[in-house]
């Protein structure tokens, strides 16, 4: 049943891509007045934009599909690879969710592991609530430590220092892991070159339009890119809600640095620089609460964008030198493209083309343009939703995703990028949690 479902959706995705391609090559031959210089320039710019867009989607979808096939056909040795692991749970003012997070960790399908909660100087009852669950639970041990407030990176460094196991799993205090997350992720460490495994992050609170759109974004945007990067063992951001690391690799990299607001991206780049392979495991799932309001979403994206810009700036020497480490260079280029070029193209490309088409008296081009981009998003949504065997009802949201969500997020990204270049002061921006996990 699942295979038929997959074939159907993949066929639909290919069909949609074909239609998108047909529209793309039809547009320049449509009978409108192309004497206008604005329209001619617009056609050139837009054709270039569409080429880049198609190439981006095709590369990501193709590499992602290869990773998917590789993962599904991989034959695991009979003997499991199950060394001791410490799960690090940094928590700052997470009283609403911390007990649920710890309880879910005690149900993991793994023979022996420690859970270490690091209370980062919370001003609420986080420490007390976590300490209630401290103790031995057969396969798992729960420990809770408290330190003065210093941010997530410092909290994780404290945990890495206290861990006595060869592997650590870093997660967020407001996340929940799937039962098999640890077991699936650990199998990659049979390869001694693998320094970290990035897990699959899913939105758990699909309660309103914003969170459902983010659920689609995580599948179609973030995971699609991560899956593609995983095929070449060069994932460029091991996500905060779930990342498993070889402790030795972390120690040699100096742990998390505190000079960026994207400590996960920064650490990943340090590991890539050191030559470690970083892979993706889609069965290692972390469920996370997505921002439920527009303001919280903007706050999160503002921090992500500025953090990524800071990490890029920090590793800029490798950005323009492909000979240092090719995987690292590709990762940096990809981050730069997604952080700056892609939002710029989305917002200004749309604006430029719309006004050029209007000025030339050919608004029908705008319709073709929008149709093409929407087809592409629907095709990508079908493809990625099918690969993750996710909820098909998310696919129609791709229309709203293209129309409203991407534009709103990209505008915020552009402002955040500009503020980063201007060195505008910023804070961490702690999100309010509803405690839905």
């Amino acid at each position, binding site marked *: 049943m699942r295979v038929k479902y997959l074939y159907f959706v993949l066929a639909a995705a290919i069909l949609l891509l074909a239609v998108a391609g047909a529209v793309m090559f039809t547009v320049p031959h449509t009978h409108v007045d192309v004497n206008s210089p604005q329209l001619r320039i617009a056609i050139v710019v837009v054709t270039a934009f569409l080429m880049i867009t198609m190439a981006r989607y095709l590369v990501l979808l193709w590499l992602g599909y290869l990773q998917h096939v590789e993962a599904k056909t991989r034959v695991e040795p009979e003997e499991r690879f199950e060394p001791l692991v410490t799960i690090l749970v940094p928590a700052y003012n997470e009283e609403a969710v911390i007990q649920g997070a*710890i*309880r879910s960790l*005690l149900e993991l399908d793994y023979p022996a592991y420690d859970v270490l909660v690091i209370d980062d*100087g919370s*001003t609420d009852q986080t420490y007390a609530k976590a*300490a209630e*669950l*401290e*103790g*031995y*639970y*057969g396969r798992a*041990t729960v*420990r*809770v*430590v*408290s*330190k*003065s*407030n*210093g*941010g997530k990176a*410092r909290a994780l460094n*404290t945990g890495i220092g*206290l861990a006595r196991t060869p592997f650590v799993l870093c997660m967020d205090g407001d996340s929940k892991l799937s039962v098999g997350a640890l077991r699936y992720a650990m199998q990659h460490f049979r390869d001694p070159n693998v320094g970290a495994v990035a897990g699959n992050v899913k939105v758990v609170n699909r309660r309103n339009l914003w969170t459902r759109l983010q659920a689609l974004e995580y599948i179609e945007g973030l995971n699609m890119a991560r899956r593609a990067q995983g095929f070449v063992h060069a994932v460029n951001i091991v996500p905060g809600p779930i990342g498993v690391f070889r402790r030795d690799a972390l120690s040699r990299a100096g742990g998390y640095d505190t000079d960026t607001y994207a400590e996960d991206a920064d650490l990943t780049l340090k590991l890539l620089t050191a030559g470690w392979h970083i892979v993706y495991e889609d069965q290692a799932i972390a469920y996370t609460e997505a921002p439920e309001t*527009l*303001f919280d979403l*903007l*706050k999160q994206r*503002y921090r992500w964008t500025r953090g990524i810009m800071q990490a890029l700036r920090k590793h800029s020497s490798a950005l323009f030198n492909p000979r240092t480490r090719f995987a690292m260079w590709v990762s940096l280029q990809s981050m730069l493209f997604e952080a700056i070029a892609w939002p710029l193209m989305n*917002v200004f490309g*749309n*604006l430029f083309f*719309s006004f050029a088409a*209007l000025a030339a008296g050919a*608004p*029908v*081009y*705008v*319709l073709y343009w*929008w149709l093409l981009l929407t087809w592409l998003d629907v095709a990508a949504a079908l493809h990625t939703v099918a690969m993750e065997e996710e909820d098909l009802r998310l696919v129609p949201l791709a229309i709203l995703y293209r*129309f*409203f969500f991407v*534009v*709103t997020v*990209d*505008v*915020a990204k552009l*402002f955040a990028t500009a503020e980063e270049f201007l060195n505008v002061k910023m*804070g961490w*921006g702690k999100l309010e949690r509803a405690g839905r996990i």
Partner: protein
Amino acid sequence: MDINMLLSTVVLVSFIVTIVLAVGSYLAFKGREARRPEPELKRRGGEPVFFERIYLQPKKAQAASSPA
């Protein structure tokens, strides 16, 4: 009105309105962040973050029990 023209107008107007709303939302977000009170730690004059006190709780022996 031609259907293509109608749809094009809908797309164009929606797009421009979305951009305007996105910019407005961002400015509103920045305004709200600017009005937010400073964290208590900062107001106290900034406790040095490099001084990290770690409190290790004594372990309670609980034989293979599961949490309530």
